[in-house]
């Protein structure tokens, strides 16, 4: 454990930069892509970049609760993606596409 800590400790900055890049990619994916599946993947990417950051900080501080949280988030994300994909299937059945523009009718 100690060895590992020493291994990544000086590189915390790298982790932060990596996570920021991943997160930004996720955000841009959500904003730019029209395919709902891709948007979902982007959201997962954002979530997991946060997970990675949490782990890095947890190790950095020698505090295990951060990693416990990561498990929580993964469990919740799994549940969320199940529901999301179910909705997606219904959207596809109803509109015949997975394009986000096909949901334009969902307005007042």
């Amino acid at each position, binding site marked *: 454990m100690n060895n590992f800590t020493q291994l990544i400790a000086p590189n915390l900055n790298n982790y932060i930069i990596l996570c920021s890049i991943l997160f930004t990619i996720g*955000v841009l994916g*959500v*904003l730019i892509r*029209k395919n709902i599946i891709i*948007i979902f993947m982007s959201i997962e990417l954002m979530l997991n970049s946060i997970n990675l950051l949490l782990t890095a900080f947890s190790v950095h501080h020698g505090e295990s609760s951060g990693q416990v949280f990561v498990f929580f988030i993964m469990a919740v994300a799994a549940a969320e993606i199940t529901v999301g994909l179910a909705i997606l299937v219904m959207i596809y059945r109803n509109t015949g596409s997975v394009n*986000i*523009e096909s*949901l*334009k*009718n*969902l*307005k*007042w």
Partner: protein
Amino acid sequence: MIELVWLIPILPLLGFLVLGIGNNKISKSIAGIIACGSILGAFLIVLSLLIPMLNGTLQATTISYFEWISTGKISLSFSFLVDPLSIVMMTIITGVGFLIHLYSAGYMSHDEGMTRYFAFLNLFVFSMLLLVMGANYLVLFAGWEGVGFCSYMLIGFWYKNQNYNDAAKKAFIMNRIGDLGFLLGMLLILQTFGSLEYSAIFSNTSNIVPNSNLIIAITFLLFIGAMGKSAQIPLYTWLPDAMAGPTPVSALIHAATMVTAGIYVIVRSNVLYNLAPATLEIIQFVGIATALFAATIGLVQNDIKKVLAYSTVSQLGYMFFAIGLGAYSTALFHVVTHAFFKALLFLGAGSVIHAMSGEQDIRNMGGLSKKLPITFITFLLATLAISGIPPFAGFFSKDEILAHAFEKSPLLWGLGLVGALMTTFYMFRLFFLTFFGTFRGTEDQKHHLHESPLSMTIPLAVLALLSTIGGFIGIPEVLGGNNWFKHFLTPIISSTHSESHLLSHSTEWILMGLSVGAVLLTIIITYIVYVSKKSIPSPDHSSEGVVHKLLSNKYYIDEIYESIFVKPMYQLSQLLHQFFDLKIIDGIVNGFGLTVNKTSARLKSIQDGSLGFYLFAMVGGIILILIFNTIL
């Protein structure tokens, strides 16, 4: 039997509840039995109290049932007072009330709404009993409002006729004006004496300066209430219109009981009134003015019920006149005798109207004495009683009032006598035109003429008996009696000088002889005019003298009130409606709605359904929040 006092008002109330709730399911005959039975029960209990009260074995008692209002320094109980005054009133209300209920069972038997009618009649008796039995002004006021409400409901009983509805509204609003005065008087009493209980107030008057502004204000405000309820100038115009209701209602509410509530209140508060001679002066003036004023209008009316209505107003004026003279027990004596003969007159009129298939114009009657013998005889007795022919009931009470007036001043006596003569004239005019001469109605009506059923003639007979002998409860000393009625009421009336006669017996004899002689003369004149000469009042719209026109239009009082009070009020309301309500109030309310509508119309275009934009807005929003967070 004193434990059963609470049953007296409760029985009519139960009758009301049963009849009111089961309105459509109760058949007419059962409704009549329930209504009459509840009043009869109450009457029997009243009798069981009256007899020991007469024997002297029952003293005046206050029975407290529960604490009604208790707040701060004020504590008001719901309690009944049984004393000679309330017993007298209770006897009249339940006794005459029962007879009129019985009569109604026959009179209203063809009416669709008979159950509703009896329900309200029972409620009226309940309220009236509450009014006279209450041991404080608050219970009295509850009954006071109750009778006003019942009066409204019963005047407008045939609600499909808009005129009747208007009459009902008029009565209610006029009464409201009086009620406001009464309420203010009550509050002033509460502030002055710290209580509304009669016993607490009347035993606590030593601090009050006689004729001070305070006591005058209290008594005058109470008198305003009495003016409304008892139809005195200037609030009398509702009573003649109230004849729109069924005739038994006119008999019970607008002749025998409710309209005497004002008299009752003042007699009950006589301790206060004795401290305010100035108010008594006003009452005296208003009373005699009303008595004369209404009598002159009565002279030319052609509607049988209108004549009786104006006669009632006039007689109520007499009662207030007596009160103004300080002769409280005499006023109450007249209430009692008036209840007998005026109820009888109204019921007799009802019997005539019943026989004439709803005709009320005396110009279309005549010669009814053979067809309606019982009505004829009873009506005659009542007419003699109201005219003050000895030994009928009206003679004793009216004579006593006139004697008191003479003590005060011969002028007042003269005015009183003129009123009495006018009463005699219009009553005999009515009597002769209705029962003498030849029949002037249509053939249809002539065929239909019939004496009323037994349920209607029995009350007539009983009331005729009472009108004949009712005066014997108060035979004055000069005629060998001992004025028993006055002694009976002595406990509740604080003695003043004018309660006892100062006149010598010979003067009284002369006054009596003069008035009876004048009355007899008037009857003879009336007989000559309407029977020997067979003159019939001219039809409406014919050319008449100025005086006659003035009288038959009731001095244009209704029109004057209309233009002084109603129209300006109406125009003011119109103005407020146009300006304040439509522009300001509606403007504010609609303004809110419009603002929300317009704003949302703009904002809703943001939600155009493109999820991409939503996501963009969401991310943008989060970024903005983060930026603000770092800055602040």
